[in-house]
């Protein structure tokens, strides 16, 4: 199989380039893209990428495969297919490249930190857990599962344009995760922090985030909820 791999080593290369590498794929197994990268790295140890859990829960190996963002470890070759007879592997778009497939995620993390991604509760903690009904807890399903892989935010044109000011789908999903938590008491403060023309309202409902999320989450819906809360707040 022919792999077209994005290469860039800042100490050697003036500019990034695509390297075509022929690789032998063991028969009878539907490899994941991460397996292919591991095979490539065994041949050429200089290939750089992040990986950890290899089962789609740690969010390390978000990549762009044949033009679509996803996690290399749970994207099988049969699923991603070939693009012009090649498997094209590039870093996540829109973030500075450190080396090969490794991007600088600091802007992404900064947006996450901006939404105060932690539970705030100004009442003294009880001696046991804070009670929450199954119905209240159910509101967090589809939100807390985010793995911060950045597949969504780096597929979002609004984030490409304003990565410093638009929180982006991942950060907003987490913003709503805390807005929706019955144990959190900082709803007013959280909404006030988001109430500007950029943080939330740069979402244009393009829904690339939904189409690429490897965990099947729906940031656009969460953003819709935040919009409604902001609108209700202003009336």
């Amino acid at each position, binding site marked *: 199989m022919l792999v077209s791999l994005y290469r860039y*080593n*800042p*100490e*050697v290369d003036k500019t990034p380039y695509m390297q075509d590498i022929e690789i032998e794929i063991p028969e009878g197994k*539907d490899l994941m893209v991460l397996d292919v990268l591991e095979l490539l*790295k*065994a041949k050429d*140890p*200089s290939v*750089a*990428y*992040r*990986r*950890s*859990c*290899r*089962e*789609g*829960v*740690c*969010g*390390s190996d978000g990549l762009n495969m044949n033009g679509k963002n996803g996690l290399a470890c*749970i994207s*099988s070759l049969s699923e991603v297919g070939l693009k012009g007879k090649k498997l094209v592997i590039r870093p996540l778009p829109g973030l500075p490249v*450190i*080396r*090969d497939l*490794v991007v600088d*995620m600091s802007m992404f*993390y900064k947006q996450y*930190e901006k939404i*105060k*991604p*932690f*539970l705030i*509760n100004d009442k003294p*903690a009880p*001696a*046991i*857990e*804070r*009670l*929450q*009904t*199954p119905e*209240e*807890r159910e509101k*967090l399903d589809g939100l*807390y*599962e985010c*793995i*911060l892989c950045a597949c969504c935010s780096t597929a979002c044109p609004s984030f490409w344009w304003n990565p410093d000011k638009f929180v982006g789908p991942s950060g907003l999903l987490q913003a709503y995760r*805390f807005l929706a*938590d019955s*144990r*959190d008491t900082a709803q007013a403060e959280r909404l006030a922090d988001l109430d500007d023309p950029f943080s939330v309202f740069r979402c244009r409902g393009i829904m690339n985030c939904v189409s690429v999320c490897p965990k099947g989450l729906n940031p656009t819906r969460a953003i819709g909820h935040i919009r409604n809360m902001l609108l209700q707040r202003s009336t």
Partner: protein
Amino acid sequence: MSNLRTLNYDAIVIGGGGAGMRAALQLTESGVKTACITKVFPTRSHTVSAQGGITCAIASADPNDDWRWHMYDTVKGSDYIGDQDAIEYMCQVGPQAVYELDHMGLPFSRTEAGRIYQRPFGGQSKDFGKGGQAARTCAAADRTGHALLHALYQGNLKGGTTFLNEWYAVDLVKNKDGAVVGSIAICIETGETVYVRAKATVIATGGAGRIYQSTTNALINTGDGVGMALRAGFPVQDIEMWQFHPTGIAGAGVLVTEGCRGEGGYLINCDGERFMERYAPNAKDLAGRDVVARSMVLEILEGRGCGPKKDHVLLKLDHLGEETLMAKLPGICELSKTFAHVDPVKAPVPVVPTCHYMMGGIPTNIGGQALTIDADGKDTVIDGLYACGEAACVSVHGANRLGGNSLLDLVVFGRAAGLHIEKSLRDGFNVDDATEDDITNALARLTRLNNSTGGESVATVREDLQSCMQLYFGVFRDGESMKKGLKLLDEIGARVKNTNLEDKSSAFNTARIEALELDNLYEIAYATAIAAEERKESRGAHARNDFTERDDENWLKHSIYFPATKSVGKRDVNFSPKTVEAFPPKVRSY
């Protein structure tokens, strides 16, 4: 040679998983100048993969639940070489640690009463084994580790913890008195090597499941901290004790939680027989993990395995119904479809025992202080060094860990280490600075690698190491074959010292990191092999064909491996809990 930049902290925590982040949080909140050094962004740590839950007697599922029952189960599960004072501490303060997680925001699943949902797990009982199966594992669906790790990271963000993300700790720096005074570390992004100076160094680097070919562990689980401790000359305890989880997805190694069986799933052989009824008539599929794993291997060896090669058994879940599976085990359904191409709603999942957890590690006391043994055989504290979580052996798991106890171990002893450091710094604990020579010593390995001009590829040597461990030191062990394995390991050792780093570049050079990780894998594999050969009995996860019985007369002991002499000694197990009578060893049956 050291013109290294020095970073100064009061305490450093190496590892940003559950244990490391709990320790870092404790330290930061108490005002100790702390940095958490982690080779991956914290939420990429392996804690994220824990599924089933955190076991703790919070008396939600059963209002009469008692931490002493949990303690009894844990002692029995450990096959009686867990330290009873440590187990007592963990089970007793556990509820507080779990409530803290809820207050931090961990989205636990809930009961109708609004309390934390608890599910049954293996080895759990009520009333000291007399009251039937307990449900004691607190869960966030089947993503408890993910929920826990993110909540801890969020707690640390709130608390303002300093993280050195994507920094790799290379080796401990020891001063002239043998105290640990920090670590050499590489900033992976830039390649800069620095000396991180600290009065207290906490090793929280997790396990090393990657010494085996087939493992549920993340690719990052290379036991870096334990490797560093061994190279610094410090001993490890019970390192022969490796847990093989009954249900790794056959072929892929990916874990499916014991919670599957807790929720009513069971294992079947090629005849469709629920074979655990034969091996453990009472607890059946919820017997201890070692018991279930061995039973599975026996079924396979006796020709009752499934599939064309008869090399696995099946985990049946479809009878639970789609609704239960989607509510209680959504992540499992996802993993099974991805890695086994099986939808558990419709068909059973192919599973096989897979290396999962390192019960052994750096021996510590309850405060997380690392221990060594002096010439008179007495425990001695290693100044400046702490360990917690899977890297440590405190020891709460003994010869076999119960499901759900690892997450509890993380938060309880991460917190305990933080508390101990806080107090000891307040009491004026200090250490002498390292000299230039001390730092140069700690740089030796990195220097060797950076100057390598030829030698073998890291990937090849690593593969040979993993297959050697799989073949000779797996679920069943045998003296003769372990000797063969050891001989092979000696050869591999020579090759490990001669690996080549072809690419010497600085920026995000993961080849350099993988080469350094291989050294750690090897240190731990070798210690495992020596200790496994030495322990001439079967206990917990250590099952020998040539010594099939537990030998309490000679081996109701911790093994302790000394790297300088490559020899194994024995250390007493603690049978002196503070508030309850000790549980004396009994025949362990389920």
